[in-house]
Every structure is written in structure tokens, then in C-alpha cells.
């Protein structure tokens, strides 16, 4: 193991210091349904009764009456659905995509991006001095050059809740015949 202390641009740490992008929406779609030859947008709109049902199935409120679903198709036959959603954690905003098959089962979950709204990471120069080794030249920018954080209390609880809600949204939409 080799460890070195790095200088950091303090000005590069505003309140919303952290952003890591993993996939674009389009990349996620083709990754989640590589067999698909077309994706069609279906805009769902639920009434109050349906929203209640979604809430009951998911165990959390439906949150929105409108949902956009991408229908993955191959030769006009449906393969499944991709829903892209945002959840807010304690300090972070997570964008993720869920792929659900036409059988209603979750196929895969991919994180699209992760943004931290909590800054001020470099406050303890005395602590940093404990790290032995030579400082390297060239300051780094958080988010640009640094994509990894150690000691994050990152939780995926909100993603898990969000996925449950999306599964319920798709179930209710399919029951009503809006989705194949």
C-alpha cells in the first residue's frame, strides 16, 4: 500500500462540492436492455385512487401523480421498462435507473449520478499532517479529479424505497392497461 497526502483547492469546495456521474439516461437504457431495438416514452398519470394503491403497495407515499416510463421494445414486442428517478438522502441527491421486466420483476438497478450537498470536507490540517509521505505537485479538484470518498455515511435506503415505489407504479399502470 502506498499513501500520500495531496494538496487540494479549497476554493473548489463550495457547499455542493460533490458530483459523480456514472451513466447518462441513454447509456443506462441500452445497458439495462441491450436486446432492445427501440425505447418509447410513456407518460403515466394517476388519479387519487391509483395513487393510494401505489402508496399501499410500496409502503411509502406515491409522491407524484405523473411518471415517465421508457418502454423497451424489440421488434415492437415489449421487453420491459426503465424508470429514472431522483431520491434525496440526508445530504445527497441520487439519480438512479430501475429496469423492470414485463413479468414485473426487478432486473437491475444502476446509479446514474450522485451529488453531495454537504461541503466543508477539508477542515483539519493538523489531522492531515499525521499522514506520512511526500506531497505531490498539482492541486486536485473535488468532483473533477477526485471521485472517491472514504468515510461517507452513504446510505442506499432512499434508493431502496424509491425502487419499491417504482415497482408499485408499474404494477398499477399495468393493471390499468396503460402499459403492456
Amino acid at each position, binding site marked *: 500500500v502506498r499513501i500520500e497526502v495531496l494538496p487540494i483547492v479549497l476554493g473548489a469546495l463550495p457547499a455542493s462540492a460533490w458530483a459523480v456521474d456514472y451513466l447518462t439516461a441513454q447509456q443506462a437504457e441500452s445497458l439495462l436492455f441491450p436486446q432492445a431495438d427501440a425505447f418509447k416514452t410513456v407518460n403515466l398519470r394517476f388519479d387519487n385512487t391509483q395513487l393510494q394503491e401505489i402508496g399501499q403497495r410500496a409502503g411509502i407515499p406515491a409522491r407524484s401523480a405523473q411518471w415517465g416510463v421508457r418502454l423497451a421494445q424489440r421488434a415492437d414486442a415489449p421487453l420491459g421498462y426503465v424508470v429514472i428517478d431522483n431520491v434525496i438522502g440526508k445530504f445527497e441527491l441520487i439519480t438512479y435507473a430501475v429496469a423492470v421486466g414485463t413479468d414485473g420483476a426487478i432486473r437491475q438497478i444502476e446509479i446514474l449520478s450522485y451529488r453531495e450537498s454537504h461541503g466543508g470536507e477539508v477542515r483539519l490540517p493538523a489531522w492531515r499532517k499525521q499522514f506520512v509521505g511526500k506531497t505531490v505537485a498539482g492541486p486536485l479538484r473535488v468532483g473533477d479529479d477526485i471521485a472517491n470518498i*472514504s468515510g461517507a455515511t*452513504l446510505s442506499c435506503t432512499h434508493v431502496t424505497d424509491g425502487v419499491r415505489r417504482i415497482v408499485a407504479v408499474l404494477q398499477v399502470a399495468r393493471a390499468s392497461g396503460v402499459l403492456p
Partner: protein
Amino acid sequence: MTRAVIRRAQPWLGTIVSIELAEDDDPARSAHAFTRAFAAIERVHTAMSAQLPTSDVARFNRAREGAVFACDPWTVRVLQLAARLRRASGGLFDVALGTARASAYGMVDPRHVIKLDRKAQIDLGGIAKGYAVDRAVATLRCCGIKRGLVNAGGDLRAFGPGRWPILVRGAGALALERGALATSQYLAGRSPYRNDALITPATGAVREIDRAITVAARNCALADALTKVIALSGTTRHSLLREVQGQAWLR
């Protein structure tokens, strides 16, 4: 320091696991490696999550004393490592969190474990994430990936040539080359999450620790587990660290 990397992330092990690979000439190789590495993470999650009722851990906790049952061989390896670390740390690292009189379990063979203490309840939360990172790294190398980094919510490991800049929360930036880094934060009285290491295994007493511990080690399971040893011993010069050629920082 500029480099081309490709990144993917999925929610596993109660956190977000991200994998970064040096951009490959062969995109199909990277795609295959990502799939295989996330499958390894999923396997650890499925076997070792305390929340999943079908996991090896949940089945162990429900089992009667003397029960022998089949486990994922990876679970058996983690339990073996945990038993070694428990002895070497004088009980500071203990996946049974003090619920067992002596040994909570024993290894029957590479696929079977015996429960030795009726009251024993295990939780692999202090080592499984690190182990998952190690398995993912091994899988990536197996797939022919030369350079990459796997990060499971702050327990991370880099492999291959070159340095990876890492931000250690509340502290600063480090460059990591060929090795693992884990950080545990214990904020006395305001810990936002359940915290195993706040329990002193020998006495079951809850310890108030208001510190953050970062450990560097050759692999991530060790780094992960050692943060708990350092937290409870309060020293960065613990003999176990020297044994594994690790480094630790307290703040």
C-alpha cells in the same frame, strides 16, 4: 493526473458500490468485467446481509446450538478470517459482538459451519463490505482488467499501477496506490447509524467514541475490520496493524 476512467455504481450492502476501471481498448471486456464484479458484490450481499432472512448470517442467528449448516464458501472464509482477527485483537474485533461465551462458531469444512453457542448472534457488518470489495477486485483482475478501484460506501481498494486520489471525509485528500482504505466514523451521541464497534465485545458495554478512524491495509477486509480494533483500542500502534503492515489514523 488526468486519466480516462469508466464508472458504474449500484446499490448493494446497504450502500452504493462504485467501480472505476481504466478505460480499455476493448469496451466489451470492461462491460463483462463490470457485470462479473457486481455479481460478486451481489453474492456477498445475498450470503452475508443480516437483513435478508435467507442469508447465511440470518440462518446462523436462528440456528440452534450444535446445528451444522451449509454456507456460501465465501461466508466460511469471512468467518475464518473473523475468528483469526478476534484472537489476534484480544477480542476487540468480534463478529458475535460479545454474545458468545467463547467461540460462536466453528468450521466443519469449506462449506459448513457449526454454531457452538446457543446465544451467539453474528453480524458481519464490520467486515463484509471490505470482503465484497476484495472479491470484486479479484473478479476484475480475473477478467483481464489492469487498473481499477472498487468503493463500497467508503471501504475501497485500488489495484494496478498509478495513484487514485481519495477524499477522506472531514480530513483531506490522499493518494492511494495498490491497497485498501477504510474509514469508520463514530460520533458520540449523534451517530446516524447503528454502530457495532460502539459495543465492547468482552463486556457488552456500549462505548462512546467521538472519533473517526482511517486504516490502510493490503486488502479491504482487513482495513474494514481493523477500523473497529483501532476504535476500541484507541491506539494507532496496535500490534495487529504492524502484523498486517497496515497504517491507521485517528482524529
